[in-house]
């Protein structure tokens, strides 16, 4: 059966036929895009006019997010900015610590089980001035429950007195850089960094066991994708244990599951041969809607957490250099074997020293195992400079930049972490374009909210939360940004032959938009309304908020 969808405008991203009014779909794939007359030759067709007043784009591709964005919606949203949940409800941002406590109290009132802790997420105290949240603030949530609020970075947890007690941390003499003490010598309730968080985390609902293989989280995640026009999403750092893979195969295989998930296995304590062998096994288990077999390596930490590895002169505020999350010799070994064995690697580097190390490793490995189309991809690479982009180009690498940072942390980068000059070159999209490095842009959800059109707005405008334009030279145009959130991201996963444009032979994946992103204006690109998606020829309308 062949369906022809009529639309107000179709932006195809196919350079030989950039626009069309109709698209013909058969067996979940695109027969062609063009005029109604041109498509009539495909035989018996049904004309579907439900999109006659909509704009179609290729289904958007989120190149770096985490399924955990879905899981977090089990908890109470406590962030500063408005955010939409999987059901389409808008949660207003909380504008003070008092407002956050009130929201947690409201949430606590709805909990049936008396033993259940109160868990919030998305808290971002940098917007509340110098006042830090402490356990006494959270003690104002009525009742005897343990209360915990995870920060937007996911690397700091605030807990109440009860939670400290349960964790065995309500005592004097605690000596840890991640656990500030109050005047009474007891922890204030702020727990910074994973080690400090672990002991209390399980008592406030952030339990590793619960969070691994979270089926409900995967379903929530897929609904968010539909709301944001996303038909292919990368889940960038999954441990992918066998039971997790089994669950993901089952759920993504359901007839109405709306997203193609690219799930990368994160390297942990693996030897290089084990890692590569497991990646090949996973690749063989892939289905259309669950793509496996790519390896994720985390090389350093984050810039705002001062754990990224920077080259000279280091952090603007004088903080010591960050941490390696992988030993250089291990990175070298894995990159070399992966190239030899044809397994693709995506590597997280934030600081420019981490990026340089990765470039060195790939260069060395290529001398041993020349590879024409490895597409090893730098994830984030936020501080890469022009010389490093030239090396990426020479080495056949891709990069996935993180423009959402400009909005959420750009002011901090300018004032504190890296200073004006480097803040203005962060996530250098225009340099990537000029150098010819294939690139994507991403949200890293749940670190920032998923929404490729918002991310595109960030790349086009480079606007910070306070309204500063952070490096006008690195702004890119709307057409380039739209290509980046479709074909650009698809290329980094070697899926550009399959998705990312609307043209004959490709998957029938569309983002269905109420507004035309080429007409709405660069300033309003983030305001483009999404009706829903078509994924593999199946129509998914984002339901209205309850």
């Amino acid at each position, binding site marked *: 059966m062949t369906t022809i969808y009529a639309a107000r405008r179709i932006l195809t991203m196919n350079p030989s036929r950039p626009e069309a009014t109709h698209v013909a779909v058969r067996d979940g794939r695109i027969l062609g895009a063009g005029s109604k007359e041109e498509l009539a030759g495909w035989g018996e067709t049904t004309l579907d006019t439900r999109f006659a007043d909509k704009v179609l784009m290729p289904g958007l591709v989120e190149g770096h997010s985490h399924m*955990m964005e879905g899981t977090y919606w089990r908890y109470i949203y406590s962030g500063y900015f408005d955010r939409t949940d999987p059901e389409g409800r808008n949660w207003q941002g909380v504008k003070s610590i008092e407002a956050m406590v009130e929201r947690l109290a409201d949430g606590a009132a709805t909990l049936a089980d008396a033993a259940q802790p109160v868990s919030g997420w998305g808290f971002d105290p940098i917007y509340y001035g110098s006042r830090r949240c402490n356990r006494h603030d959270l003690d104002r949530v009525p009742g005897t429950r343990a209360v915990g609020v995870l920060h937007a970075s996911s690397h700091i947890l605030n807990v109440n007195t009860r939670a400290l007690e349960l964790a065995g941390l309500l005592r004097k003499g605690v000596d840890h850089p991640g656990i500030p003490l109050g005047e009474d010598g007891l922890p204030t309730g702020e727990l910074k960094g*994973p080690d400090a*968080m672990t002991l209390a985390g399980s008592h406030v609902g952030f339990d590793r066991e619960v969070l691994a293989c979270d089926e409900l989280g995967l379903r929530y995640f897929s609904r968010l994708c539909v709301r944001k026009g996303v038909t292919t999403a990368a889940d960038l750092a999954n441990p992918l244990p066998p039971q997790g893979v089994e669950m993901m195969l089952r759920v993504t295989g359901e007839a109405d599951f709306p997203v193609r998930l690219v799930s990368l296995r994160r390297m942990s304590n693996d030897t290089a041969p084990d890692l590569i062998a497991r990646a090949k096994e996973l690749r063989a288990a892939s289905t259309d809607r669950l793509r496996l077999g790519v390896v994720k390596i985390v090389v350093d930490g984050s810039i705002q957490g001062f754990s990224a590895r920077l080259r000279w002169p280091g952090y603007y505020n004088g903080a010591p250099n960050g941490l*390696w999350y992988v*030993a250089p010799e291990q990175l070298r070994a894995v990159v070399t074997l992966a190239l030899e064995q044809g397994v693709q690697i995506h590597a997280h580097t934030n600081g420019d020293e981490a990026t340089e190390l990765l470039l060195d490793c790939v260069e060395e490995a290529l001398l041993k195992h020349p590879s024409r189309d490895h597409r090893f991809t730098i994830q984030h690479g936020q501080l890469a400079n022009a010389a490093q982009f030239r090396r990426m180009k020479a080495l056949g690498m891709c990069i996935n930049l993180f423009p959402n940072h400009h909005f959420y942390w750009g002011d901090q980068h300018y004032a504190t972490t890296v200073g004006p000059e480097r803040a203005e070159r962060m996530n250098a999209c225009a340099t990537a374009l000029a150098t010819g490095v294939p690139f994507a842009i991403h949200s890293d959800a749940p670190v920032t909210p998923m929404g490729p059109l918002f991310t595109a707005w960030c790349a086009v405008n480079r606007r910070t939360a306070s309204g500063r334009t952070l490096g006008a030279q690195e702004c890119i145009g709307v057409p380039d940004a739209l290509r980046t959130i479709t074909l650009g991201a698809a290329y980094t996963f070697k899926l550009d032959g399959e998705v990312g444009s609307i043209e004959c032979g490709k998957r029938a994946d569309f983002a269905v938009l109420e507004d035309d992103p080429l007409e709405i204006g660069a300033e309003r690109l983030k305001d483009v309304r999404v009706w829903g998606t078509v994924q593999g020829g199946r129509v998914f309308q984002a339901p209205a908020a309850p």
Partner: protein
Amino acid sequence: MRLAVLVNDFGELAIDADLIEAQSGDLVSIAGGCVCCSFGSDLIGALVTLAGREPAPDQFLIETSGVALPGAVARSVALLPSLSIDSVVVLADAETVRVRATDRYMGDTILRQLAEADLVVLNKVDLVDAGTLAGLRSWLEEAAPRARVIESVRAQVPPALLFGRGHDPVATGPWSGPSPGRIRPPAPAAAAYESESFALRMPLDVAGLAGDLAQPGCGLVRARGVLRDADGSLKTLHVVGARFEVSASGAPAEAGTGLACIGLSGRLDRGAIERAIVRATRPVSPSPAW
């Protein structure tokens, strides 16, 4: 002594795991640390699991990765109320450590590791000439100012230097510190140690003594003791290099008290230790009554 060993094992050849015999069901696998996709560190989780075993291990040996900062790991482990840190040991290769310390990517990490060490095991000293070794010794005084340096060949270090003892020395019987003397380890040129023990029955300032013993002058690598404090309570004293800790002792009240010190052969200064003991036993003048 029951020792739980947590190995870091990512190498291309799983040498470490192959060398560990009798793994049976006692091998606990730990995945990597943090980052946005996971909460917390598996190390803490594994330690909680291991500490809860029956019978519980007496001591943990944690091999951190080459890029970890062991001081930071130690502070995190110390968050577990049931555990305390014995020492941070850094193994340095005499042939390569000074070059590695200038490595473009790893140099600052290696220097931070050395700076946080309580004990540095300077290995492969048989492979460098005397001049190089002398240079290394003075370089380490700067690079690892807190640490006592144990020189070794084939990483042969007497367990007494590395681990001290797993038990409270008097908890299992009357005081019987290791008898003074020399024990020659199997490999030639490997570190040899000597020990001194002191039966001490009088009350003394245990914290003051611990601080003195942690000074380099006494020449000891480790000290451990159960001692009666000035207030009459029993305390456990624990010194490794410059690190010291005094805590309430679980030993029965009738147990004997005493102090055992271990140092490298020829370095242990019995006179300095005795002077420290004398300082700690000076009668504390009673608080003024007004």
